[in-house]
């Protein structure tokens, strides 16, 4: 348990640091992949809805603190993403290669739409199709590509942790 909490915290902190610094260099037409969504979705798929929600909440809190204007917005969005993904997709093979890509892209679509509706449409910005074509769809594609790598990495980390826990607690 302790190892799992520490490794998750490290992964989330590393993610926010890389996203805000190094990954700025890999922006394509000013769009960068949403790696925090990939991590939330991966945790939801690998560990279920509760851990998905917890990881989403903490990753959102980090974004809120450093880049948000109100505290709790991204935390709520992240938590809901983790919870809904974990709840909806709890009975599928997690070894599958294609599903994480599709789920990450779909999660990005819903997540960014909520940001558009709350942050832009309510302020009178009605150019939805501009945002759809220039921001949401490119980000979905880019995130999908990145999810292949990140999901596999987290899958390996999770495997390693589960092996350790199996011996410690004499499960199975």
């Amino acid at each position: 348990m302790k190892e799992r909490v520490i490794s998750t915290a490290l992964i989330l902190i590393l993610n926010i640091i890389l996203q805000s610094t190094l990954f700025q260099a890999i922006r394509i037409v000013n769009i960068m992949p949403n790696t925090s969504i990939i991590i939330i979705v991966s945790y939801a798929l690998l560990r279920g809805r509760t851990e998905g929600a917890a990881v989403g909440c903490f990753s959102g809190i980090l974004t809120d603190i450093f880049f948000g204007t109100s505290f709790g917005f991204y935390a709520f969005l992240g938590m809901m993403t983790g919870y809904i993904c974990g709840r909806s997709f709890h009975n599928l093979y997690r070894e599958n290669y294609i599903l994480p890509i599709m789920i990450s892209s779909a999660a990005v679509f819903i997540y960014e739409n909520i940001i558009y509706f709350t942050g832009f449409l309510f302020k009178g910005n009605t150019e939805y199709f501009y945002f759809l074509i220039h921001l949401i769809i490119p980000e979905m594609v880019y995130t999908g590509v990145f999810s292949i790598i990140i999901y596999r990495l987290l899958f390996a980390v999770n495997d390693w942790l589960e092996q350790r826990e199996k011996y410690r607690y004499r499960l199975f």
Partner: protein
Amino acid sequence: MKFFENYKKQILTVLAVVLVAASILTAGRTGNANFLESTLGFVITPLQKVTTNVSSFFGDKFSNIKNEKDLEKENEELKAEIERLERENKRLSLMDEENKKLSSLLEISQKYAAYDTTASQIIAKDPGNWYNIFVIDKGTKEGLSANMVLTAEGGLVGKITESGYTYSKGMSILDSRSSVSAMSVRTGDLGIVKGDYTLMNDGLCKMEYIDSDAEIMEGDEIITSHLSDIFPPGISIGTVKEIKTDSNGLTKYAIIEPHVDFKHLDTVLVISESGEMEETAKKASDNEEVSN
């Protein structure tokens, strides 16, 4: 742990409600960070600083190889520029003296007062695609606080929206939530410079609510106006690139090209009127003297 397992759903629901309430209550707040935020910032900002410095080191090395030929030429140009600016500066300081004398004769206060400044490095940028927020490496420890103004290379960059102990959050004028009261130098027409998402990625912004009779033209210099209580008057923002009439026909808007290159921005200058930064620096040096 057992408690958590049993009441999982209830805990999640309560947490969700609390987060929604918090995000509504804290929306649009400006102020300084709380203890939790400052502590997390204390841990994370040094790491961000290291990563930014390492990546910009390699980026510089890479571009140096490309640009070595141009350097000599650029150096000569810059020397000529310095000479020109020095001459200009001398002339302006004479005018400043004259201005002081004349305004003391007329008994009016100085319009463009001197400000405290401190340089700061941008250590992290917004990980999302919607907004234009960045983190700089100085905070309340150095006397910075919310609503201080950020400039770079002679142009306006934005303002600080929140200060932690070791870091501050800045919002650039390209962000769609930012608005700055501005005026044209030549004609004195007022307007509001706002960020716009469709222009943000090209590094441009928009000046709205210009009167339809205003004689503003392409190439006009835009500066901050005297109407704002955050931005001091007279900071240059950019030049007008294009003028368009709004669909209602009553007002015009202009597309502004800022003087600052937001894509390659890495250091900013923090400006404050109040002299807080000087006080903090003084206190720090006093403390050192005492400890010595």
